[in-house]
C-alpha cells in the first residue's frame, strides 16, 4: 500500500445526486435502490414511457417474480427522491467523479445536473437470425419473440394444437443460456398443448445457468426430440422439410414441420457507443460497455463513479441485472457517503511552475480523473487511482504521485543495486498488484530467488519511467526487469502497455550505448504466480551470468 498513514488528508465536498441512464426495469430498480439509501436520483429515459424497454426476453421464466415488479413503475413515480425525465437523452458530460456535470436534452430544453455518480442501464437489442438459416419469416417461419407472443395468448395457443414445431437454436450463432432458456420455456409450454410435437435442432446447448439442465431433461421426458448437430440441417423450400444425416443411425432423418421457430440473437444496444463517448468510458467486446478485465467485474467501468448494470455490460437476464444493481447500490454509498469525502492531499500533485497545460495527462489518464484550470492540469483526488501513468508520460515531469515521487524512487534504485557477492545485481520494478505480490509469495514460500535481486514496488507498471530503467543501469545494475500485470489484467487498463513501450524504447537506447538487450526484460505476471516468478527471475539470472557483469559498474 502507499504510505497513506503518513500523508495528510483533507475533506472535500462532493455532489450526491445520482444520474441513472435507461428507464427499463434495470434502470428503475437502480433508481429505486439508490433513492432508497437516501440519494436524489435523476432517472433518464429516451422513450415516452418507463419500463417500455423491457422485452419479454429478460423476463423469461420469471412470471412469478414479474408480478412483484408490476408496481415498480408506479412506486418509482411516487418516490419523491426520484426525478423522472422521459424523452430525454444525455448530450454531454464534463467534470469528474463526485462532480460530474451532465447536460440532458428533453425536446428543445437543455437541463444541467450536477451529479456525483452515473449508472448506465441500457437494454440489449434482439435480432432475428432467419437469414442465417436461409429462411424468410412467414406465417410458418417465426421468430422466438413471435412464438413467445403466441404462447402468451390463450386464443393463439389453441391454434397450436396438433402442430409439429421445429426449433432452430445454436446453429446460427454461438448462443448463450438466455437464448436457450427462451427456447426451453416455449418447448415446455408447447408440450402442454394437445397433440403438439416438438423437435429441436441444436448446436451446443448453452445450459450454464441455474435450472436449464433440468428444463432440458423435463422437456425430453415430455416427448420433445433434440437433434444435436454440428452444422445446420438441410432446409428445403423455406422450411417445408428439414433433414440431416444421423451418423449413429446411419441414415437421413427428415421432418416436415408445420411451424419453424428461429432463434434470435441478443446484441449490445446501438446507443452504447455514443454513450461511451459522452461518458468517456470504454467499449468492450461486442459493443458492451465493459472491458474484459476481472478488476472491473461486476459493475465498474474504467472511470470511478460511472457504473454499468445488466445488459449494458453483457447479455444478462433480470437475475444478474438485479445482482448488479445491488452491487452498484453498495458502491454508490461507499463513494458518495454523506457528501463529504476524506482524500489524501498528495495522491497526485501537479506542479504549477512546470505544467504547460499540454493535456498529455488528460489524454492518457485511463480513469478520466484529469481536467484543467487556467494555470495547470487538475487531478481529482476522488477519481484518481494513483497509478502514475500521467506522471511518467508528462513531458515536463510536472506530476508527482504520493508515496512514489521520483526522488524517492531513484534513491530506492540506487540502494537496490547491491552486491550479491559477485552474482548479478538485478533490479525488478514490480507492479504492486501483480509482480510484487508474486515476488513476496516466492520469498515467503522460500522458492529459489537470485541473491542480487531487489524488487522495487510501483503502484502500476505505467509508473515506470524510462529514466528509472536507465538510471538503474547507470547505478550499476547488471539486469533490469519490469514486472507488470498480464495484458488485459491491469487495473489501470493500459499501464502495462505503457511499460512495454518504455521497455522497447529502452532497448534502443541500450543498443546505442552498447549494452546487451538481454539485460532488460518485460514480463507479464499475476499475484498468484509465486513459482512462476521464481522461475522467471532465476532464468534472468542465468542469462546475465552468460553475459557477465555489467561493463558500466
Amino acid at each position: 500500500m502507499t504510505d497513506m498513514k503518513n500523508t495528510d488528508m483533507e475533506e472535500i465536498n462532493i455532489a450526491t445526486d445520482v444520474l441513472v441512464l435507461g428507464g427499463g426495469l434495470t434502470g428503475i430498480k437502480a433508481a429505486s435502490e439508490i433513492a432508497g439509501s437516501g440519494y436524489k436520483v435523476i432517472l433518464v429515459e429516451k422513450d415516452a414511457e418507463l419500463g417500455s424497454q423491457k422485452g419479454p426476453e429478460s423476463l423469461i421464466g420469471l412470471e412469478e417474480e414479474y408480478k412483484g415488479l408490476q408496481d415498480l413503475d408506479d412506486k418509482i413515480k411516487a418516490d419523491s427522491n426520484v426525478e423522472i425525465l422521459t424523452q430525454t437523452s444525455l448530450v454531454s458530460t464534463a467534470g469528474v467523479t463526485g462532480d460530474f456535470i451532465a447536460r440532458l436534452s428533453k425536446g428543445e430544453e437543455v437541463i444541467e445536473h450536477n451529479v456525483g455518480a452515473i449508472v448506465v442501464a441500457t437494454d440489449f437489442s434482439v435480432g432475428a437470425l432467419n437469414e442465417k438459416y436461409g429462411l424468410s419469416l412467414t406465417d410458418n417461419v417465426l421468430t422466438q419473440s413471435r412464438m413467445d407472443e403466441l404462447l402468451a395468448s390463450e386464443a393463439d395457443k389453441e391454434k397450436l394444437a396438433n402442430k409439429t414445431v421445429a426449433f432452430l437454436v445454436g446453429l446460427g450463432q454461438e448462443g448463450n443460456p438466455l437464448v436457450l432458456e427462451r427456447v426451453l420455456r416455449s418447448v415446455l409450454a408447447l408440450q402442454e398443448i394437445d397433440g403438439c410435437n416438438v423437435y429441436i435442432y441444436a448446436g451446443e446447448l448453452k445450459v450454464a445457468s441455474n435450472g436449464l439442465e433440468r428444463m432440458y431433461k423435463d422437456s425430453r421426458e415430455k416427448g420433445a426430440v433434440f437433434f444435436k448437430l454440428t452444422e445446420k440441417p438441410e432446409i428445403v423450400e423455406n422450411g417445408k422439410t428439414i433433414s440431416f444425416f444421423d451418423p449413429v443411425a446411419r441414415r437421413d432423418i427428415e421432418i416436415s414441420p408445420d411451424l419453424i421457430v428461429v432463434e434470435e440473437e441478443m446484441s449490445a444496444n446501438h446507443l452504447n457507443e455514443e454513450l461511451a463517448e459522452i461518458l468517456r468510458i470504454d467499449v468492450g467486446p461486442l459493443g458492451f460497455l465493459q472491458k474484459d478485465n476481472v478488476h472491473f467485474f461486476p459493475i465498474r467501468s474504467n472511470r470511478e463513479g460511472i457504473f454499468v448494470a445488466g445488459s449494458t455490460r453483457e447479455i444478462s437476464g433480470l437475475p444478474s441485472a438485479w445482482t448488479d444493481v445491488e452491487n452498484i447500490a453498495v458502491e454508490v454509498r461507499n463513494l458518495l457517503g454523506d457528501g463529504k469525502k476524506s482524500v489524501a492531499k498528495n495522491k497526485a500533485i501537479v506542479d504549477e511552475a512546470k505544467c504547460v497545460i499540454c493535456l498529455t495527462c488528460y489524454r492518457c489518464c485511463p480513469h478520466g480523473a484529469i481536467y484543467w484550470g487556467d494555470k495547470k492540469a487538475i487531478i481529482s483526488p476522488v477519481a484518481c487511482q494513483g497509478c502514475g501513468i500521467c506522471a511518467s508520460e508528462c513531458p515536463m515531469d510536472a506530476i508527482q504521485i504520493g508515496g512514489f515521487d521520483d526522488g524517492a524512487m531513484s534513491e530506492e534504485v540506487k540502494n537496490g543495486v547491491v552486491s550479491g557477492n559477485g552474482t548479478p545485481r538485478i533490479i525488478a520494478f514490480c507492479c504492486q498488484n501483480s509482480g510484487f505480490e508474486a515476488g513476496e509469495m516466492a520469498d515467503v514460500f522460500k522458492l529459489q530467488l537470485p541473491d542480487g535481486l531487489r524488487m522495487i514496488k510501483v503502484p502500476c507498471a505505467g509508473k515506470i519511467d524510462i529514466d528509472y530503467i536507465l538510471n538503474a543501469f547507470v547505478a550499476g545494475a547488471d539486469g533490469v526487469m519490469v514486472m507488470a500485470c498480464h495484458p488485459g489484467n491491469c487495473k489501470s487498463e493500459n499501464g502495462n502497455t505503457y511499460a512495454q513501450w518504455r521497455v522497447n524504447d529502452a532497448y534502443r537506447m541500450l543498443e546505442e550505448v552498447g549494452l546487451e538487450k538481454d539485460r532488460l526484460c518485460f514480463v507479464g505476471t499475476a499475484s498468484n504466480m509465486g513459482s512462476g516468478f521464481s522461475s522467471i527471475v532465476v532464468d534472468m539470472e542465468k542469462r546475465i551470468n552468460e553475459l557477465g557483469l555489467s561493463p558500466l559498474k
Partner: protein
Amino acid sequence: MSTKNKKVMVIGGGIAGLTAAWELSRFNIDVELIEKTPFLGGYAIRYCCKATDECRQCGACTVEAMLKNVVNEPKIRVHLATDVEKINNSGRLSVDLKKSSYKPDSATEGVIRGYSKNNSPLHVIVDKEKCEENPDAVPEGAVELDTMGFSGKLDVDAVILASGFKPFDAEQKGTYGYEKFPNVVTGMDLELIIRENATVVRPSDGKTAQKIAFIQCVGSRDESLGNLWCSQVCCPYALRMAERIKHKNADAEITVFYMDIQNVGKDYAGFYEKCKTEFRFVRNIPVDVFPMENDSLSMRYMNEEDGLCINEEFDLLVLSVGIMPGPDNSNLSDLFDVVLNEDGFFAGIDKLNSTSTLKDGIFLAGTVAGPKDIAASMAHAGQAASEVIKHLGVS
C-alpha cells in the same frame, strides 16, 4: 440508525465469504468470519494463473487481492478451524461455535501450508509427533491445529451462509480410474499442479505431458447420479488451462471430450474459435480408461463421423469435475432452518433475490446457493452484503 454495534457473522471463508465480509466492513459493520479449515480462501485460493500472452480472465488473482484486504481489515475478526454448533434465535441471533473437526487429507512432515502468502498463520502443525521427529522441518511461526478454533457464543444481527461447494469426487466415476492410475487427475489437481510447478508434469514420472485429454462434465449433467445441473465453471477452467498449456508448449496435443461447450469470457465466440484451431474437440464422453505399461492411459470413445469405437492413448487425463452441494449443507440447513433446493444447494427467496432466505436475518452468498464462478460468487456476495445492510437499516 447508525452502524454502531451492528455485527454480522459470515460462515465460510471462501471467495464469497471474504467478499461479503469485506463489503460489510466498509460500512463499519463488525464481522465475525467463521472458517472450518485452518486457512482462509476456500477452493479458489489454490487456482493457477491461466494467462497466455494475455490474461484469460479466470479471476484467480482477484481472490489473492480479496484475501489480502480481509486479513488487513481490523473490523473483520477471523475464527479459523471453527464450526457452527447451534443457533439460538431470539431477538439477536446467537450462535454457538465450536472447534471444527477438520482433518487434512495428507500431511507429509506433519505440517500443512496455506496456499497463499496472505494466509495467517501460514503453517499449521497437524501431527505433533511427526514434527517432534524432525523439528528442523517445522517452519517458524507454525501454529498447532489443536490450539486453534473458537468455542463459545457470539451474538450477531445477521448471518451470511457462504460455506461453498464440494468438487465432485471423481472416485465415484470408478471407470476413469482416479486415484488408481497416477496420470488421471482432476481439474482441481491440475490447478494446483500448475500453480505450484508453473508447468504441467505427469504425476507418475515428472515428465512434461505431451498428449493430454480433458473429459468434461465429470459429475455434472449426469442423470445416473441425479446431478441435473451444469456446473458452469468446468468448460471455462478446462479451456483456459488447455490454452495455457498449449501456450507454454506448442507441441502439446490436447483433446477435449465434451457434450456442449459453455461460453468462456465476454468474447466467447472468438475464444471458442481460437480453441478449435488449437485443440481437437470430440463430442463424445468416453466411458472406460485402461492403464498402459508406461503409465499412459488408453481410452475408448465413439468416432463422430462413422459412429465406430476407437482406442487412443494419452499421457495425462484431466477429469473436469464440477460443483456439488457443500458437505455441510444439510446440517446447516437444519441448524438455520433454511431450505435446500431439489439439487441440494440453498434456496433463496426467489430468482431475482437469491441471497435472501425465507428465514429473517439469514442470507446466502456464493456457491452455497448453486454453481458459480469466482466473479459470480463475488457479485453474489456483494448482493448479499447489500441485502444485509438494508436488513440492518444501516445508514
